[in-house]
């Protein structure tokens, strides 16, 4: 029943770099994932500024140019599409739309789902049930089809796309938050606070919400990958972003017709999607092992055996 809390704090004191960061870089896959994601984020933030013009500039000498040759310059190392536009440039710039839409959708669904989950979990009356039934309806239907129907009814535009992606993800946050609130609500320190005289607002925001936040954020990180995939599928099917805006998904759709002649047009964007979601999944897997006290020793042990 006594907890040896001193051992981990001792480690933290010996090095200025925080422990999680040190452990991440011990694992080659997790480290690669971090590096890749940072690179992609940099592309999304700074890409359009740096090589924006190359995106639209047609270059007829480079039409359907194959990759891996530096003939036309470094920008064309991944090849070019039918209009001669640099694929590398389009990839870098496309990161902004792809990641931006996903981030917006995740943020929206996190906030709405989290709030609804707090209410549904805390209230003991009809309201909670009502919210859950609403979530059931959304969840009982394949999200892609729901998105397609909604987008077709409301018209495909970026705000609508974000909206529909957010709506289909809300039930996930809702359910998880609610389940956790239900559990935290019964914990002793909540009873203790009630016995002190705390009211509902205080209990919800001072005690329950801070405990539930980390779980929501963890799901958000994992969900980001799913949303990127969902947006790509929608854009691929033609109901996502419309030209001239583009994401990696719509790039794949554009390249589909040229498979036999210019396979690289469809290949690189899809690969970019794969690597991004893979990195996100690798990292969230790593995070799950790290935050589970029963499993963390596996990470720490790997470090130790390397140090020997």
């Amino acid at each position, binding site marked *: 029943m006594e907890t040896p809390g001193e051992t981990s704090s001792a480690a933290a004191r010996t090095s200025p770099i925080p422990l999680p960061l040190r452990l991440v870089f011990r694992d080659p*896959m997790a480290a690669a994932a971090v590096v890749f994601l940072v690179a992609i984020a940099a592309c999304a933030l700074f890409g359009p500024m740096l090589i924006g013009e190359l995106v639209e500039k047609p270059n007829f000498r480079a039409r359907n140019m194959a990759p891996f040759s530096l003939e036309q310059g470094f920008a064309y190392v991944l090849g070019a599409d039918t209009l001669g536009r640099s694929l590398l440039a389009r990839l870098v710039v496309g990161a902004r739309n792809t990641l931006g839409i996903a981030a917006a959708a995740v943020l929206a669904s996190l906030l709405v789902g989290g709030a609804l989950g707090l209410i549904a979990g805390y209230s003991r009356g009809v309201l909670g049930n009502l919210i859950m*039934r*609403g979530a*059931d*309806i959304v*969840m*009982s*239907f*394949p*999200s*892609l*089809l729901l998105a*397609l*129907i*909604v987008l*077709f*009814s*409301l*018209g495909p535009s970026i705000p609508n796309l974000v909206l529909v992606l957010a709506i289909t993800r809300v039930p996930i946050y809702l359910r998880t938050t609610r389940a956790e609130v239900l559990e935290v609500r019964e914990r002793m320190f909540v009873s203790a606070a009630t016995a002190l005289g705390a009211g509902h607002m205080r209990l919800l925001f001072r005690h329950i919400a801070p405990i539930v936040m980390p779980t929501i954020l963890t799901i958000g990180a994992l969900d980001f*990958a799913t949303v990127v*995939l969902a947006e*790509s*599928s929608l854009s*691929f*099917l033609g109901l996502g972003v419309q030209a001239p805006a583009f994401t990696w*998904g719509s790039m*794949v759709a554009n390249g*589909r017709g040229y*498979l*036999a002649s210019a*396979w690289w047009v*469809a*290949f690189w*964007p*899809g*690969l970019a*999607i*794969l690597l991004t*979601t*893979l990195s*996100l*999944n*690798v990292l969230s*897997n790593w995070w*799950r092992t790290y935050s589970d006290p*029963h*499993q963390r020793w*596996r990470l720490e042990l*790997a470090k130790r055996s390397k140090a020997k």
Partner: protein
Amino acid sequence: MFGYVFRRSAQSLIAVAGLLVLVFFLSRLTGDPAYLYLPLDSTEAQRQAFNELNGFNDPFYVQFGRYLADLAQLDFGTAMSRNRPAMEVTLEAFPETLKLASIAMTLAIAGALVVGSLAAAKPNGFFDRLSMTVSLAGASAPDFWIAIVAILIFSVSLGLLPTSGTGTPLHWIMPIAVLMLRPFGLLTQVVRGSMLGVLTSPFVKTARAKGVSRRKIIFVHALRNAMLPVVTVAGDLTATLVNGAVVIETIFGWPGIGKLMIDAILRRDFALIQCTVLVTAVAIFLLNIVIDLLYAALDPRIRHQAA
């Protein structure tokens, strides 16, 4: 136990009902169907006549009332784009998707159980790291891209497999392989995580103290307990499988319900949209009941739950 299944089914039924109402309103929200079905050079009068004839000009609540009445009489309307009863078209396409999905799901589950259990048996070992990488990659891959790359390699370059359609067993290989990739990846992760957790639980310690063999501990003692979250996730995944089916069927030209639904949406065929939604929702509903029963069969604590 039956109380448990009953309650869950009732909840799902409400969801199905809500969904049908939602679809009705969404599919009539924007646009004029006449523009789509009649040729571009048709006159305004012709379009008005078309809408009048098919009841698209009536106020919302009248259309809704008609919709409910039709549903109650099991009249699902005519698929405008094909000029056949909507339900007939739907029920033709549904078994095609069912075949694809059930084979893919079975393979995914079986594979995940074996690979995940073996990975959890020796955590951080070579097999574990390898299988984790493969399953993570599978779970992260955009299915449309994998399909395209597969076609590129196996059809265009190597000429081994056909690009689309049904017919020979060869036609089945790529669609099933691509469809099962994501569920397999996700389920392997879940199985491994669940098994790791169960393998550290106290009753496994008891089994070791009793002198039970390692293989029996993994596959008899641990696996059945680890199955419970797997069943839940597998159930959720089945809805996702329909998502995947839409894309796969579109790319490979498979005449299933996913492709049908996309066509119906693009052609504004209301009756067909409603029909496909209904059939899909009912299928998922029935599947959820099966999952709940499976859950109760696996865990005796749920069977004996006081209502």
